[in-house]
């Protein structure tokens, strides 16, 4: 108690302390410049008096959505879009609470959540992506898998690469007598939703024990945060196997396996085979569809779409009108930009149905 130092201990971060002493003028100048810039931006905004349409939600389609908003600014200069990629959960919550003009989600909304909506909420599918099975084996052999085997591995029942089930699918490939180290996403994500949705469809045991969600209680494996976390772990671990988004695997030149689809064909994941899956999948009228394990010879089985969420009855007619115009533009012209950004566009039959649905939005 009689120690004077510790009684009056007040912590000042040394960085702040030295900086403030040395360069107060500089700091003020920068602040001044920032303020001036802010004012300028504010003026520019108020002069053109643009309409702001706010959206929030899924992170997976964020790159293409921001491209769309950018391009659409050239089409219609009177409207600006502000999209916050806060995650599908946040997107659903915000549109339910009507704090945004549209939401976005990587998974369709559950009946339970949809019943909380104050009025009818529409699902508008925009683009699709896929999950691929990627792995790290000596020599990077090309591999083939079927749903049953993948489920077995992720349930922790198939433990070794030399398991006869993997061998039977890959005749001629020399598989090491090595433990399979399963890597999955630890963060809640649309990627995991597609993955678990697929496994639930091909394995009754998975459906009963684990189920479908953006994050689940994994029976085995280690969790990496984000695509980069999973990919990093797989790249560094011989014998590792996991799933990442197709785009991520392509951009990082990771090997990925062909997967057997519902028709018994081994299909390589590609934008074309994702669009093929959407063309042949059963799509209900409310567009809350799943295209995993879709029928059709060319369909890649582990794929999923992403949706925009908008109210059928728009509260603000002026905003609603602009939003509908944008949605139509996105469904027609926007779709053409999808492939450049490695998203699968909607097939023609679905595109037509989506346009009809957009027409049903009332002001």
């Amino acid at each position, binding site marked *: 108690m009689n120690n004077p*130092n510790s009684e009056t201990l007040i912590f000042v971060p*040394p*960085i702040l302390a030295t900086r403030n002493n040395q360069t107060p003028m500089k700091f003020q100048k920068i602040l001044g410049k920032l303020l001036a810039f802010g004012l300028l931006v504010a003026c520019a905004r108020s002069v053109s008096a643009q309409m702001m349409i706010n959206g929030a939600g899924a992170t997976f389609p964020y790159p293409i959505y921001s491209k769309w908003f950018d391009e659409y600014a050239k089409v219609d200069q009177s409207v600006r879009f502000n999209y916050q990629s*806060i995650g*599908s959960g946040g997107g659903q919550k915000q549109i339910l609470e009507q704090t945004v003009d549209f939401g976005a989600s990587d998974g369709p909304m559950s009946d339970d*959540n949809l019943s909380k909506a104050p009025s009818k909420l529409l699902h508008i599918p925009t683009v699709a992506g896929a999950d691929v099975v990627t792995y790290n084996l000596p020599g990077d052999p090309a591999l083939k898998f079927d749903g049953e085997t993948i489920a077995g591995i992720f349930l922790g029942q198939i433990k070794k690469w030399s398991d006869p089930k993997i061998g039977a699918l890959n005749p001629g490939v020399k598989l090491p007598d090595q433990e399979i180290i399963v890597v999955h996403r630890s963060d*809640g994500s649309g990627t995991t939703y597609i993955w678990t949705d697929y496994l639930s469809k091909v394995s009754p045991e998975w459906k009963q024990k684990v189920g479908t969600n953006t994050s*689940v209680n994994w029976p085995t494996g280690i*969790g*990496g945060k984000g695509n980069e976390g999973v990919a990093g772990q797989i790249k560094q671990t011989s014998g590792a196997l996991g799933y990442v988004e197709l785009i991520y695997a392509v951009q990082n030149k990771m090997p990925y396996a062909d997967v057997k689809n519902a028709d018994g064909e081994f299909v390589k994941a590609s934008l074309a085979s994702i669009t093929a899956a959407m063309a042949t999948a059963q799509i209900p009228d409310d567009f809350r569809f799943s295209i995993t394990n879709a029928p059709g010879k060319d369909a890649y089985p582990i794929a999923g779409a992403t949706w925009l969420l908008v109210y059928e009855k728009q509260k603000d007619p002026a905003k609603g009108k602009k939003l509908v115009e944008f949605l139509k533009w996105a469904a027609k012209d926007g779709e053409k930009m999808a492939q450049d950004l490695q998203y699968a566009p909607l097939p023609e039959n679905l595109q037509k149905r989506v346009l009809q649905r957009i027409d049903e939005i009332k002001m």
Partner: protein
Amino acid sequence: MNVVTRPSIPGETEQPSLATQMSRPSRFGDRAFEWLTLAMALAVIALVFLVGWQLARGSQLAIAKFGFHFLTTSTWDPVAEQYGALPFIYGTIVSSLIALIIAVPLSIATAVYLTELAPLWVRQPLVSLIEMLAAIPSVILGLWGIFVMIPWLKAHPFPLLKTLFGWTPFFEGPIYGISMLAGGIIIAIMILPIITSVSREILRSVPNLQREAAYALGATRWEVTRIAVLSYAKKGLAGAVILGLGRALGETMAVTMVIGNTPQIKASLFAPGYTLASVIANEFTEATTDLYLQALFEVGLVLFGITILANLIAQVLIKTMAGATTTRAVQ
């Protein structure tokens, strides 16, 4: 954050009585100043309560549904909506302890070197370097962890630990690289600068008289440092450690990237783990159902509770330790 300001409270309580004695001619400025500072101090306390209250309110459903079981069960299943936070609590405490075990000796030794031993021209560059470590964003450190630290740990130190201590339950099992130990090490790197900086300030504030007195008695450099400096500053150094602990408990992004995010309780430090902060960071954005969100809020509440509890325990420890020290320092 609230740790360090606490010791100044006893001094504060004496001031009003002194002030009232002296200020017969009314001084509005002093009064206003007193009220203003009081309001500020109360605002901080109110903020803490507000956070706690908000977290508790946000997790009502989960608290009602799982009750005490939330703290004692290990299943975290968003599909079946079964939530138990025990593995996260375990992971938070263990990873923070690992971090402290690594960071505290390193930081204090660095601080001692910087204040007592280092030649003057070395001091400023070294201090700046350590402060730069604190300026590295958590995400960057996490990425570095995945792509640089983990491969290295997996190649050299981990196998060595396994051959040396593989017979204990703490270093057995397969080495994935991603592990509780890796999480602890990355936290250690993150709390090192703050403990070092604060320790350095404390050691610098040890009066030179102390050192001179020890030298006068014929003490060697090591004896001076030990008896006159470290012993004198013990309480303050403990404060620095608490500050580090507070950081360690809440550290999120970098840990999430290297700890493996598997809700399990394993004695082996090579096994992946999970922390309270990580599960919130991982799952909050995509949590769609009410109960799920509320369970995550409750995880936040538990983390809040653990942080406060850890601070309280640490402060009691300091009190008892300080009692023992002062008598020895005087001798």
